[in-house]
């Protein structure tokens, strides 16, 4: 299987604090890969490093056999590597349809496209995806007026609209009504299988990640602690210790 994202020996410090130390991991194409770890173990920092928010201190990041270590956020996003945020990031003063429309892929956008109206297909795709995440009835509401959970769903739909190759999801179920979590897991799996989007998911909810991922990496104190199938991770003594606070 092809490796889509290849993180090689990445280290990142803030001042004197080591957030990521010598981390290497691979995200294979077409699969769902999980990333777990206690609070402050450097999961989100790693995401930020991959998508280009932070310049890394050492190591390299390769996406589709292409070195992207020094690329900017926008350039990486246009290559098809997208992330969602832990705290929702949406365009609050625009309605859901507008939020979706502006998320169309920008990969091949030329200067003249800036001044064109949207095509019919774009509108149809918006309707499809909003229905897919269950926000169709709220499509004309201002995004800022939606509840936190709905904003998360909208952000997920916006990411799908962008048609990425791989999607980095930062705690997709945090803050979502527990009764809706099963539906969300189902949608993530469908996005993976039907749309062919590779997923790389940070998750705190063990039930969710064990259910979802095929391969899991576990971080602790900024270092890679363990990796393996959900079963192996569940039974790994080091992982259990890390979560229970033993050293």
């Amino acid at each position: 299987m092809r490796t889509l994202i290849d993180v090689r020996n990445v280290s990142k410090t803030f001042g004197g604090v080591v957030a990521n130390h010598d981390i290497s991991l691979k995200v294979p194409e077409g699969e769902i890969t999980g990333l777990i770890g206690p609070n402050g173990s450097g999961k989100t920092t790693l995401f930020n490093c991959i998508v280009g928010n932070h310049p890394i201190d050492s190591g390299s990041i390769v996406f589709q056999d292409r070195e992207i270590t020094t690329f900017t956020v926008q350039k990486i996003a246009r290559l098809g590597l997208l992330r969602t945020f832990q705290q929702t990031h949406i365009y609050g003063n625009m309605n859901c349809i507008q939020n979706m429309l502006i998320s169309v892929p920008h990969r091949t956008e030329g200067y003249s496209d800036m001044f064109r109206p949207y095509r019919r297909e774009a509108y149809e795709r918006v309707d499809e995806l909003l229905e897919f995440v269950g926000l169709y009835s709220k499509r004309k509401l201002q995004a800022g007026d939606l509840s936190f959970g709905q904003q998360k769903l909208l952000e997920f739909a916006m990411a799908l609209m962008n048609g990425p190759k791989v999607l980095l999801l930062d705690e997709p179920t945090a803050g979502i009504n527990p009764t809706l979590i099963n539906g969300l897991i189902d949608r993530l799996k469908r996005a993976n299988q039907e749309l062919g989007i590779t997923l790389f998911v940070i998750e705190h909810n063990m039930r969710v990640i064990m259910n979802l991922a095929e391969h899991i990496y576990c971080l602790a104190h900024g270092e890679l602690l363990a990796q393996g199938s959900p079963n192996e991770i569940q039974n790994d003594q080091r992982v259990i210790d890390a979560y229970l606070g033993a050293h």
Partner: protein
Amino acid sequence: MKPSVIALYVVIVIAGITAPLVFPNYTFQIAVLWMMILFALTWDIMGGQMGYNSLGNIFFFGAGMYISAVVQIAQFAPVGEYTSAFGAYQVEFTDAQYYTGLGLGIVAAGIGAIFCAVILGACVFGLRGPYFAIGTLGLALAAAELIGGWEWVGGGGGISMPVFPGGPDLRSRFFYYIVFVLAITTFGFLRWLYTTRFGLAINAIRDNESKAEAMGLHTKRYKTAAWSIAAFFLGMVGAVFGNMVGFIEPLEVAFPTVTFGIFMVAMSLLGGKGTLWGPVLGATLFHVIKELTWIYLLGWQWVALGAIIVINVVFFQQGILGWAMDRWPEKFGIVVEPSPGEGRAVGAQEAAQ
């Protein structure tokens, strides 16, 4: 478009065309009103729609004015000698020479302003919020001071523009109609622009620029384009205003940062920023208030204007249209409640759970 809206446009255009014939004594004032509307509209592209509050957009107005002056003069006389003579250097322009010079000057002003916007944009678009406002303010102030020390373009003494070949009535009407056409064109252009992808993109930058970047939007491109569009129209109207006044100098006419420069912000805010009609409304109201204070508050008019700006910003920040949108959102097409029964199967199930 609704018939009532079309009727409104027709009324405005007819009023604009007939105004100098009905009020011949106020032609200059009404021309300035159209210019104010253009100011507010172009400021709002960046300030209202894109969330980049510039205090230095007046730079393009002055840049356009000087570019056109140089272009108009340079075709028929050496610029250095012409400016150093302070109007004593008489050049006899034929009618044709004057008009082609003016036309070329206006076009050059627009294009030159775009160049300035692209170059300066690279210098200031890494700044956000208050830093951007202060940085752009710095650009406008610096331009005024630097031009003031540049003898080739007349320095602080200014330039007397080529004399219009015609009577005073014809002259004022001629420039009135150019400003009028420019303002109407700006409005029409922006009205179309905000319906394209461009409109959504700059709104997205206003609401959450880091998200827009994370989604791969070409933010720099959109920001530069937005500033260039504002610069283009401001540059052209600057060229026209320079000729309309007949004499240009850096501090009071070309780069009046503390008057026109701040007025364009105040007018947009007064009408409601981030809307198409807000700036038009704000500019009209502000101009009327300004003229009234000129008549009734002799001497203290500037203090009164400053106070109006403060009151506007502090107590009435959302502006007239912003207030109306809060009050009657449905009239502006903003939906606050999901419409029941409209939801399709999946959404309805979800909501019921």
